[in-house]
């Protein structure tokens, strides 16, 4: 029999439909892989074995009854712990929500379950998604499956690591400034931030409401396309006012190739200070491959991108401060006991419930929204957003997609970036897309010749051209190969019985 990590999500679903193995066997194999691998990787905060086995039993019963099976029947799924799933805790990796039990299920999670996925568990993240390394979790750090001394990236580090370790075939993450694409790059898997509005945010704990977007991780481009179908096919979500109709089949044009397509590269980004030479060379190889497959690679400019990080660190903390004001310790969350009055209870509950970075971001947001400061920074940041969005619009008059790094370097060691403002720079290549709203995908390109760690490229398309992103990503996958399971984890538990 096969090992669970040798199969893609598409292969698992096909095997379940064909009766080669049951969904229950898949669930058990995935849970065994978690049991055998996760003590070292630390991707999971909570394993929902009962829910996974119950979902699997329903699929097996459907098959036995001759009912049609959903497209991701029996596929093990990990869920970032800022997404509600009734019957589980949703902690956002924070002491603030350490004992919070979800009373409802996020639309994105429900859609994956409706498509047949098995909820293996909730995975680690930087607290409330504030970070780029998953070191800010209140519970434990997550290790990069390719090198346990290194971080998996963040904030969706658990989602990326669980897929890279072969514990699950698919996972969900959220991306506010790069939190899907950067960990996908560090862990050598495919990670997609769809266009803002493509995927419902209902039931996902909000960080930056004009920036947050949910997206999938997988080891193949096809798996990510299947997940995008599951997330969007039921149509716009009436429970999220920003949810948009996005009626496309993401699998339909995967193998169309890139002949005649125009792909832009941005010289300023390829020459940016801090870009590791091995990453630059990998992106150059990706450009050469696309050209070899018939694309035309041309230079484009995005002249205002240098303002993106500053704009983000105005808009993000301002929105986070507003969103996290709800955590007052009254209706849910950590509550300080024996306080003299409500104001003291709120201030102490928030002081002791939130970790250091969560407090920093909220303090920065509070300052930026305070009288006299707001006009100076907030409007300027939103004007920069206009300019960055226009930059992309102008570039997309010349090209169909843009190729750039996803992260400036490969995974760094735990503790290596201790200065928070230096950590913020690791999102150099991802942040502008959250500002502008269009979609991007991080595609693995093998291992860097200097570090021996995964390197990647990011593809960017105009808003709601996400399906085309998958076609480019597939072209790179054909050239560079599908993402392997991290060697130290492969076939370590998880045999299909």
């Amino acid at each position, binding site marked *: 029999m096969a090992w669970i990590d040798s199969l893609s999500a598409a292969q698992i679903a096909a095997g379940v439909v064909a009766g080669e193995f049951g969904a229950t066997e898949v669930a058990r194999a995935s849970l065994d892989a978690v049991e055998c691998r996760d003590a070292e990787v630390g991707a999971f905060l909570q394993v929902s074995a009962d829910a996974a086995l119950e979902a699997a039993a329903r699929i097996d019963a459907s098959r036995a009854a001759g009912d049609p099976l959903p497209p991701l029947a029996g596929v093990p799924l990990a869920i970032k712990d800022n997404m509600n799933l009734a019957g589980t805790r949703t902690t956002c990796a924070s002491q603030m929500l350490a004992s919070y039990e979800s009373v409802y299920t996020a639309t994105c999670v429900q859609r994956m379950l409706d498509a047949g996925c098995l909820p293996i568990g909730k995975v680690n993240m930087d607290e409330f998604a504030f970070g780029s390394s998953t070191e800010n979790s209140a519970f434990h750090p997550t290790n990069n499956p390719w090198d346990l001394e290194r971080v998996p990236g963040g904030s969706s580090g658990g989602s990326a690591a669980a897929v890279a370790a072969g514990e699950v075939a698919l996972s969900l993450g959220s991306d506010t400034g790069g939190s899907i694409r950067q960990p996908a790059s560090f862990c050598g898997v495919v990670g997609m931030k769809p266009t803002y509005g493509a995927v419902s945010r209902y039931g996902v704990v909000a960080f930056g409401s004009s920036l947050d977007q949910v997206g999938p991780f997988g080891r193949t481009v096809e798996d990510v396309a299947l997940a995008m179908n599951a997330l969007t096919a039921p149509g716009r979500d009436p429970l999220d006012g920003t949810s948009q109709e996005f009626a496309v089949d993401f699998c339909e044009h995967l193998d169309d190739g890139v002949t005649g397509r125009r792909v832009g590269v941005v010289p300023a980004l390829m020459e940016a200070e801090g870009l590791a030479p091995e990453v630059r060379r990998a992106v150059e190889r990706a450009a050469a491959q696309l050209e070899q497959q018939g694309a035309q690679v041309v230079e484009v400019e995005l002249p205002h991108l240098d303002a993106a990080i500053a704009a983000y660190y105005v808009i993000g903390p301002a929105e986070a401060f507003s969103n996290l004001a709800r955590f007052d310790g009254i209706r849910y969350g950590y509550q300080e006991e024996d306080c003299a009055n409500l104001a003291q209870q709120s201030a102490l509950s928030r002081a002791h419930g939130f970790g250091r970075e969560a407090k920093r971001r909220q303090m920065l947001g509070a300052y930026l929204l305070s009288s006299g400061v707001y006009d100076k*920074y907030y409007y300027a940041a939103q004007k920069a957003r206009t300019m960055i969005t226009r930059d992309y619009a102008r570039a997309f008059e010349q090209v169909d997609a843009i190729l750039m790094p996803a992260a400036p370097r490969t995974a760094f060691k735990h503790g290596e970036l201790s200065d928070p403002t230096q950590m913020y720079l690791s999102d150099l290549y991802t942040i502008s897309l959250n500002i502008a709203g269009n979609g991007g995908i991080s595609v693995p390109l093998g291992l860097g010749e200097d570090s021996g760690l995964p390197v990647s490229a990011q593809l960017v398309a105009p808003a709601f051209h996400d399906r085309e992103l998958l076609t480019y990503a597939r072209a790179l996958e054909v050239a560079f190969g599908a993402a392997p399971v991290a060697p130290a984890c492969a076939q370590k538990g998880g045999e299909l019985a």
Partner: protein
Amino acid sequence: MALTETDVRGIAEYARIALDTDELAEMTAYLNDAVAMLDPILEYADADVEPTFHPIGDLANVVRADAADAGRSLPIDEALKDAASTRGRSFRVPSILGEGGDC
């Protein structure tokens, strides 16, 4: 002008986050570093463009009839189950004004 610890104490009060003396010093240093990092944005303050507050330009508020929707309402037990302190069918909070303790 750099933020002082007095400034940061005021921001913390506004943000409802109690800071001890060590945290106050660390937060002051952080905020000054972080605000310095934002300097590039000031070049855009006078840009002759409209600000973009949201990626979806024509976003409109979603409204519904001002009536309870039983399908979307939590049973009271469910709504209370994550609260640290409840009394009967209510969330329990300390005194809102003064220092009257529990109420």
